[in-house]
């Protein structure tokens, strides 16, 4: 039984409920105990770093102070939260002129959930416990921006062409296709304020994924998942086509391959229904 601190972030309590449930189910199965950080607060997201850098660091930093007090390394499923926590950690640990007034010891580590679940020991565990290989499922991995960039902040070993999700999904038996848009931007929070920009960026992703022969796109960030899933019908209509590309969280595919009970509990919350695809390859 491993135990690790857990920073869910705000969207996992709301629109990304499917992501949260699949994470909990997969971690239960892998006997990873997620200990939610007590009284965690919002990382500040794009709003805080756009309007006031100092507030952004202090908001994210408060969570790091709590984690240190609890003596917990933390995993973070949301790519943006992860990025904000890493930036805050670097800034607070190098705060020589005490700009932020929030001392940190540097005793804990912050992991992106995908990075954590694709470490060699867990991948071995996943291979050992595989009950339902994802045979026949052709997927492209979409990493997005925030878990990797900028590497000086995220400590990502490969940022232009990351491969950890590709390798994890290959372990699960999926046919993982290479494609050039692994880390391209989906437009993030512009979805609310400038959907036109998001539609343009996301359409390019769909077109490439389809051209590559993918059945689905796999994400590790709930903002990416939302932007690719929620507006797919509208984007298709605007482009005069229909994409029908289910957008999975990598944890959902882990859950299916590891034999989690009733994966439809997460999958039915998607806008693009993944069940027809899963049925067609004998996985549902």
């Amino acid at each position, binding site marked *: 039984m491993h135990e690790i601190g857990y920073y869910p972030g*705000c*969207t996992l*309590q*709301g*629109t*990304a*409920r*499917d992501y949260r449930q699949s994470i909990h189910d997969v971690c239960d199965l892998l006997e990873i105990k997620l200990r939610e950080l007590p*009284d*965690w*607060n*919002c990382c*500040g*997201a*794009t*709003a*805080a*770093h*756009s*309007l*006031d*850098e*100092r*507030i952004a660091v*202090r*908001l994210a930093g*408060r969570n790091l102070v709590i984690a240190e007090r609890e003596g917990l390394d933390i995993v973070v499923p949301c790519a943006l939260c992860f990025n904000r926590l890493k930036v805050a950690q670097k800034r607070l640990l190098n705060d020589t002129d005490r700009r932020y007034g929030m001392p940190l010891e540097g005793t804990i580590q912050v992991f992106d959930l995908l990075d954590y679940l694709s470490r060699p020991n867990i991948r071995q565990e996943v291979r050992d416990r595989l009950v339902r290989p994802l045979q026949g499922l052709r997927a492209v991995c979409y990493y997005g*921006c*925030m878990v990797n*960039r*900028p*590497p000086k902040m995220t400590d990502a070993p490969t*940022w232009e062409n990351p491969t950890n999700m590709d390798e994890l999904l290959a372990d699960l038996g999926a046919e993982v296709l290479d494609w050039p848009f692994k880390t*391209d*931007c989906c*437009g*993030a*929070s*512009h979805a*609310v*304020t*400038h*959907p036109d*920009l998001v539609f*343009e*960026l996301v359409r390019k992703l769909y077109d490439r994924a389809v051209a590559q022969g993918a059945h689905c796109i796999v994400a590790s960030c709930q903002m990416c998942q939302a932007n690719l899933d*929620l*507006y797919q019908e*509208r984007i298709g209509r605007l482009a005069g086509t229909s994409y029908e590309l289910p957008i999975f969280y990598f944890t959902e595919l882990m859950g299916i391959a590891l034999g989690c009970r009733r994966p439809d509990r997460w999958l*039915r*919350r*998607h*806008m693009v229904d993944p069940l027809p695809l899963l049925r067609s390859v004998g996985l549902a």
Partner: protein
Amino acid sequence: MEQTAAAPLEVYFDLAEKVRDATGITVTACYQCRKCTNGCPLTFAMDYYPDQIVRLLLLGREEEVLHSATIWVCSSCETCTTRCPNDIDIAGLMDHLKSEAHRRGIVRPKGNPTYAFHKVFLDDIARRGRVFESGLLNRYLLKSGEWKAKLETGTLWGDLRLGWALFSRRRLPLFPHGVMNKQEIRSLIEEEPGAAETEGDENT
């Protein structure tokens, strides 16, 4: 600030230094390779390209930069910062310029939906330490005045349909969650002087 074609363009070190003092970012290191712009996913919607923003800062043309659409179009994807061979944090510059436009009252929530969204988002955090997505979207529509625009273009119905679809999938939270120590959160946010609430546009 008007520059005619004949006027010599010279580096204006005062502004470059001011930016460096505030952010630690050295714009004078730029040699205009345009790698930042070539990798930027959103140039199609920008009035100035990222390398031009850097260049304008070097030339002291702060007003143009602070009024540009580019700083709000930037999605903070960090591609430019990651790739700049001279270690210039261009995304950090965009953030700095947004904060300055905010601090100096150059932007207004009405007419700049991105800014309106950031503001209601931060207000939400100040209120309970966590963001409550359902309430946030409503306040954003009011504050930005976007509900009117959406009504006129007919896109409000699409949004309502999407909202309903999310609701029926139980993805719209009904009740906000908050942190226990709200006072601590307020002190984190309010200690900063900033001009956050100096604008006189509030009617929401």
